[in-house]
């Protein structure tokens, strides 16, 4: 792991993203998709981001890249706050994104070489067609695609190959930071392994930094250095990958980790699952205080009063819970 005193590559400070939802003719109430999230990603590190569907993981990723205008808070990249249009343009050459759905994220009317070459064309990074073609073929080679496929269309490929095309596109600008938005959840397991290992290799070769969004805890554990857990637009726990598996502090994290399937039935039987009651509340109508209190087995009066602070309880282990000390 990188040293703690180094400046982080990506510093997310109190990021908020509210979407207006029309409830009447002129009325709208904010949907708090991301509510006051702060974290840092060091250079060369992989931060895994997990949580249930609809907890705002994807929104965090997209807001960091400024695909959505943040409602509040800021993103500091490599010491430079991303504010003006010029900042965003600069940021777009440093950071890219890999999308979840390999089917809808590739334009059906473009050939593979045009899809991969699009970032090059947008940023005018190639002076002549020959250089462009060489770079595209090099990228295809890097992600394990046959260069004969350059003139084919995306619909002629399988899901895994399509995801490779998407990864090649995201590598085209030589980025430092890639937001991977559930890049393997649409693939079947054997392909998942290949793609995950490719992410690992690319990180070693190119010194990439990942924000790896997923809901599959095993995948996240495999690839991440640190893991952040989100619930209902808020971050509830953040720690090293091993630490969060071995010593989860937040009741929600405990429940999540207890739900991970274990391939060995003996251990699986010995492990007690911690089922949660009820459903995830609507983010339009979030509970007061701690968002998890409606489903938390340890909730008290105090939990309804105020939102627990996201604080460091041990070295590099952050948690947002009023009762960390009592429960654990």
């Amino acid at each position, binding site marked *: 792991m990188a040293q703690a005193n180094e400046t982080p590559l990506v510093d997310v400070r109190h990021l908020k993203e509210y979407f207006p939802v029309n409830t009447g003719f002129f009325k709208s109430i904010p949907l708090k998709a991301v509510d006051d999230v702060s974290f840092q990603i060091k250079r060369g590190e992989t931060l895994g981001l997990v949580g249930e569907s609809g907890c705002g993981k994807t929104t965090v990723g*997209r807001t960091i*890249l400024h*695909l959505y205008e943040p409602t509040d808070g800021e993103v500091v990249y490599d010491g430079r706050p991303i504010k003006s249009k010029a900042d*965003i*343009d600069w940021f*777009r*050459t440093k950071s*890219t*994104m890999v*999308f*979840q*759905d390999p089917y*809808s*994220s*590739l*334009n*059906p*009317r*473009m050939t593979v070489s045009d899809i991969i070459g*699009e*970032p090059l064309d*947008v*940023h005018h990074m190639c002076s002549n067609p020959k250089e462009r073609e060489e770079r595209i073929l090099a990228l295809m080679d890097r992600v394990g695609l046959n260069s*004969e496929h350059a*003139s*084919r*269309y995306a619909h*002629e490929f399988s899901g895994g190959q399509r995801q490779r095309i*998407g990864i090649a*596109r995201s590598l*085209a*600008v030589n980025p430092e930071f890639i937001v991977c938005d559930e890049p393997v959840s649409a693939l079947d397991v054997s392909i998942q392994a290949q793609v995950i290992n490719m992410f690992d290799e690319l990180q070693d070769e190119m010194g990439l930094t990942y924000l790896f969004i997923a809901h599959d805890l095993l995948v996240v554990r495999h690839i991440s250095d640190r893991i952040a857990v989100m619930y209902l637009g808020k971050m509830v726990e953040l720690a090293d990958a091993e630490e969060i598996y071995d010593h989860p502090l937040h009741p929600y994290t405990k429940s999540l980790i207890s739900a991970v399937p274990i391939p060995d039935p003996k251990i699986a039987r010995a492990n007690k699952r911690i089922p949660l009651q009820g459903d995830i509340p609507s983010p339009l109508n979030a509970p007061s205080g701690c968002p998890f209190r409606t489903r938390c087995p340890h909730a008290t009066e105090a939990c309804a009063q105020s939102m627990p602070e996201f604080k460091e309880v041990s070295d590099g282990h952050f948690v947002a819970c009023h009762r960390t000390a009592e429960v654990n």
Partner: protein
Amino acid sequence: MANNPLSMQVNMDDFLPATDEEKEYMVQMRPSSTFFRDGCRRLFKNKVAFVSMIVIILITLSSIFIPMFWPYSYKTQLGVQPGHPVDPSFNNLAPMEYSTTEQAAMERGESVFPHFFGTDDHGRDYFIRIVYGTRISLAVGFFASIIVLVVGMTLGSIAGFMGGRVDMVIMRIVDVIYSLPDMLMVILLASVMRETLGSALEGTVLQAIGSNIISLFIIFALLYWCSMARLIRGQILSLREQEYVLAAEATGAKAGWIIKTHLIPNCISVIIISTALQIPSAIFTESFLSFLGLGVNAPMPSLGSLASEALNGITSYSYRLVIPALVISLIVLSLNLFGDGLRDAFDPKLNQ
């Protein structure tokens, strides 16, 4: 090894390594098929659409090339020769009939080009007038659709892409234009513009085309873009939510780039189809305006004005009404059938 027919032993000859040729054969890939090629294949399979396409091509080519070598012109009155008295025997000839002057010439052994459809009451060859009228009608239909396409596509894609207030304003304008009675607006605009444009065009190149056709184009540009704009807005709205658009945004692509490379190519089939279906309706509008006397200027024929002139002699020369009416029907029918065929071939939602 001797071959025992009952032996379960494996025949090793079946397991020889593949030759280079066989390898070549195995790795051969199906040629990459594009959306466009697939669509064309489906289009050519559809007999009705294919025949309509051939009819359209034939009509178009003949309307372009026949006037080039035809011995008669659409505006020469054959009975009127400079320095000679007017020869009325040229007027109102029946199909394939010759005037007395021509009969005299033929007796002298000269060859005279026949009047396939006879002549009109000014002694002009009716066949070439029909061909010329077809040319004008097709040109109006074609250019009017292009104008509609350009205006509708621009405003529709802006409305769909920008969304919000811009979308609101453009769509309310569309609603207003929709709520006005079409024909009334067309007639009003045509008569107003004939006055204003007539003087403005004098001495320019456009004068030859005639102020009425120009005003026709302006009317199309003003009134008929609405449905095209709505259609394209709807398409863009749904395409904008696709992840590949977001991916392009994430790479830093500007709005113009996204519209040009992602949105328009993905709704191009819808655009082509509705343009193809727009042409017959433009031809229809032109014919009917010409019929009312608001179309092309006098010596220039269009199918509608030919039909309108023929009304005066409908009892004696009914074929003069029937021929342009048939040509209009043929053009409009084949364009409509072709447009339907295009839609069947290219609309992905109808493929299954």
